[in-house]
């Protein structure tokens, strides 16, 4: 497993890690064994796309598609090319989403997994293009799609091209749905902005990890513009479940089982 953890500071000896939530140290090995959940306080740490795939898919079944597809700089935004280089170097990923096919509980499906290490999982043209191709291929092959979302929202350095990816992906999701195919979304921390307002919320079945931040507008922006005090647990998975916007909140250690079960119930 690769290990870059947004919420963690790697200790001096690189085997002990510090949980930002409870401030306690734990060993890397223990953390990995525990599905990247802090054994001390139960906090869910953000997972990289490949770690997630390893956790969810059957061993050696994942075949990656469009691995090297990279976005350009469509509006020549100042400093964007440099920012992309940095993001690639820091994340070890060419773009913010990993796509492909795999088996889960022996059932073949198409998967996309977003990765917050790459510019906070923001929605650029390459992200939109990879997910669109995934849905188009899944439609042709009549495969269910399982998608893990994590995103800070738009990739503003791509201007209108970023916004239009919401439309482009939605078109592909619609065609996949019209073909009678299943789409499961798993919302992970954080899923916000344009991703929430498009394919994250278009699943037939919407699962959320416990405690994940899920919303459209940023909480701070809401507080600043309305002057209202945000209620406890605002925009967390449990808040969305209460208001009717997710089907299930599922613990990370049970996610694979639950997804496999849903796929089995839909098997044609």
């Amino acid at each position, binding site marked *: 497993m690769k290990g870059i953890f947004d919420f963690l500071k790697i200790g001096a000896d690189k085997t002990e890690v510090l949980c930002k939530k409870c401030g306690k140290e734990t060993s890397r090995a223990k953390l990995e064994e525990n599905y990247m959940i802090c054994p001390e306080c139960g906090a869910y740490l953000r997972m990289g796309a490949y770690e997630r795939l390893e956790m969810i898919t059957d061993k050696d079944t994942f075949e990656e598609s469009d691995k090297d597809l990279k976005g350009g700089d*469509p509006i020549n935004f100042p400093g964007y090319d440099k920012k992309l280089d940095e993001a690639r170097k820091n994340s070890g990923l060419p773009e913010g989403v990993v796509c492909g096919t795999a088996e889960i509980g022996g059932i073949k499906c198409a998967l996309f997994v977003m990765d917050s290490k790459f510019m906070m999982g923001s929605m650029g043209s390459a992200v939109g293009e990879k997910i669109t191709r995934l849905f188009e291929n899944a439609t042709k092959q009549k495969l269910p799609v399982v998608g893990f979302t994590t995103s800070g929202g738009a990739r503003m350095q791509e*201007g209108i091209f970023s916004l239009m990816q919401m439309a482009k992906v939605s078109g592909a999701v619609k065609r996949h749905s019209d073909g009678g195919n299943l789409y499961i979304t798993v919302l992970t921390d954080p899923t916000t902005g344009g991703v929430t307002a498009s394919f994250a919320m278009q699943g037939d079945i919407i699962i959320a990890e416990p405690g994940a931040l899920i919303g459209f507008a940023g909480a701070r922006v809401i507080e600043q513009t309305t002057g209202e005090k945000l209620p406890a647990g605002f925009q967390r998975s449990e808040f969305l479940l209460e208001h009717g916007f997710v089907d299930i909140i599922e613990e990370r250690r049970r996610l694979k089982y639950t997804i496999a079960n849903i796929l089995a119930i839909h098997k044609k």
Partner: protein
Amino acid sequence: MATSEKISAYERVQAARSSARPMGGHYIKHMIDNFIEFHGDRRFGDDAAIIGGIGFLNQKPVTVIAMERGNTIEERMKRKFGCPAPEGYRKALRLMKEAEKFKRPIICFIGSSGAYCGIDAEKRGQGEAIAENLFEMMGIKTPIISVIVGEGGSGGALALGICDTAIMLENSVYSVISPEGCASIIWKDSSKAPEAAEALKLTSHDLYDFGVIEKIIVESDRTTEEICSDLKSAIISEIFSKEKMSEEELLSARYEKFRKIGA
């Protein structure tokens, strides 16, 4: 106003936001005969930031969905300055489905800084409401013509922007984020909004060059009446050409229109 070449991107943003600029309600009044407004999403409530209804466009029955921020202070409060809530988007979708059933073309007027930002809007699923519109509008079987008449702000604008033809008034803008928001996130300085406006390439001419919109209605040296009349002719001719297509051709062209962006 200066000739179009000399207007900076930020001047266009300011023109698009100007409180004197006509919004959706104006175009309904001057373009649609026998207009009847319909209210409510049949789920939660009625959102005054979106006016929806039916009428005749040159003797042709149409459904019109329009963002409107109002003119007086009281009206602007009631209409939330034109920022739609989830029930506004759901009302819009309900009326679009009705249009589809009765085979009426749909005209959407867009002009808003964005979707309404608030605790209640999040509670009622602002993200889900927009997502549902994007998904469903890809499949509506009658022509959809979207016109950006003011500020086309992000996902809140796109929720009425899935269409067969996108038209922009010359001094309207269409952007993923406001120039102020962009400047404060990227340069930590919202006073750099004019530079951000330039960098975001959000003017009608930029978007036409990118192939994101199909038509620009010239504004410089034109009166409000002339602009309205040019826009009306453009909408009529677009509806005429789209109605010649079969449902299948229409939907597949709509898919391709967005599919090619950033491919």
